[in-house]
């Protein structure tokens, strides 16, 4: 298990290889479908300090607001990442984001982007909502809650020992690509004999 403290350097990220297990601590931000569309249309400067050297978590949480107005995460597993494929490489490069965390992996465009700008794709376990919410120790802030709604807002969160696996690295390695290649072969035999 490799411990990563955020913000993290490009050099430390480039050392990671497909298959490495990591435990992340520090500040990161959630962003999913509507947030990526918004970023791509506006490239807001206010995200610079939030994203630089940090990680984007593809997650639409179930949250609870307490009487004092503060928030906590009740359920917070990853959502499917491939929907952000059109945007992610550009977002990571622009804001110097060092990793995205999600599920299901991403495609060629992101894989090339990871090599170019120095990033990794981290796989969290989908449906691990109850367990992963425990790793979110504090909700620091939320941005664009009214515009985007609870699942799609930017939640600025502090995590402690958040578990994930490197499934796409900055050296062209992708677990998703190799599993797909193997299962394509089996499927071809099953369908065409």
């Amino acid at each position, binding site marked *: 298990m490799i411990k990563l403290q955020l913000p993290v350097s490009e050099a430390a990220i480039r050392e990671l290889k497909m298959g490495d297990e990591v435990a992340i601590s520090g500040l990161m931000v959630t962003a999913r479908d509507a947030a990526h569309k918004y970023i791509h249309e506006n490239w807001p400067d206010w995200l610079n300090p939030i994203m630089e050297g940090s990680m984007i978590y593809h997650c639409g949480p179930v949250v609870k607001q307490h009487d004092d107005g503060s928030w906590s995460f009740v359920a917070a597993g990853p959502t499917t990442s491939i929907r952000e494929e059109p945007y992610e490489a550009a977002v990571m490069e622009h804001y110097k984001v060092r990793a995205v965390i999600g599920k*299901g992996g991403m495609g060629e465009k992101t894989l090339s982007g990871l090599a170019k700008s120095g990033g990794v794709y981290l796989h969290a*376990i989908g449906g691990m909502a109850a367990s992963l919410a*425990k790793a979110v120790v504090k909700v620091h802030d939320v941005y664009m809650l009214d515009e*985007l709604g609870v699942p799609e807002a930017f939640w600025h969160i502090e995590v402690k020992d958040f578990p994930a696996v490197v499934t796409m690295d900055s050296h062209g390695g992708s677990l998703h690509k190799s599993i797909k290649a193997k299962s394509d072969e089996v499927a071809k035999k*099953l369908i065409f004999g």
Partner: protein
Amino acid sequence: MFQYDEIAVKNQLLELIRRAATDLPEDVVEAIQAAQENEDADSAARSVFGMILKNIDLAREESTPICQDTGTNIYLVHMPEGVSMRKLTTLIHEATAEAVDKSYLRPNAVDSITGKNSGNNIGEGQPYIHFEEWDNDYIEFKLMLKGGGCENVSTQYKLPDVGLGAGRDLDGVYKVIVDAVNAAQGLGCAPGILGIGIGGDRMSSHMNAKTQLFRKMTDTNPNADLAELESKLYNDLNTLGVGPMGFGGKTTVLGVKMGTMHRLPASFFVSISYMCWAYRRHSMLLKAGGEVTYD
């Protein structure tokens, strides 16, 4: 005339939602445990199943959602003659909004034009409620929570499919299902449970596929041909090597459930409703005296 106490039923529906969101049914948990046992020691698949099972226990103990995507809430309601569908719809809506307040459900209804989230999980077509009348003297509410990731990999084919060499017979049905599950990889939170609708029109075929998902994991299809095909697909799909969450392994599907409908001579649809491993469904029986049982 079937009578009931509205406040009591609203609270009972809230409990049904809580169970559906936080408590995975026993037949599903047993299927996941068996799948874990079947994976190699020290494999990634076995470890992923371990994390999944831990999460299932934690969600049940703490009454928090198993998955943050609490999904499309799909209700199938059977009721005796004379019960008002509008009143039951209102009660389901009230229970839904309260479940959001209690963090059992995520506000999951987004206006398709403005992008605005309604904030209470209620919107046009959400939750989805299907009513049918029956001869029994009690009401049955079946509820399934189906997340977006697995809904996105669900699909529909029309036979023949030239590219796959799939003709208008059960062999053709087999081929398109293999194609769909291979295309899905881990994106729908594998291992999946497949609800398959054969025949019907585009709409009824999808409905049939989803309805199959209300069957128990352990049941056997009453049609011998379909029972055989379900079993063959279960075995063959598990050779694809996709594994839990797409990490590789021997478990790509946990179950296959098929149903048929008559079709037009011109059409032959095969609909595949892919359900994630967080296969959340429970039901509630409401008797005339107000007594309620959950399954």
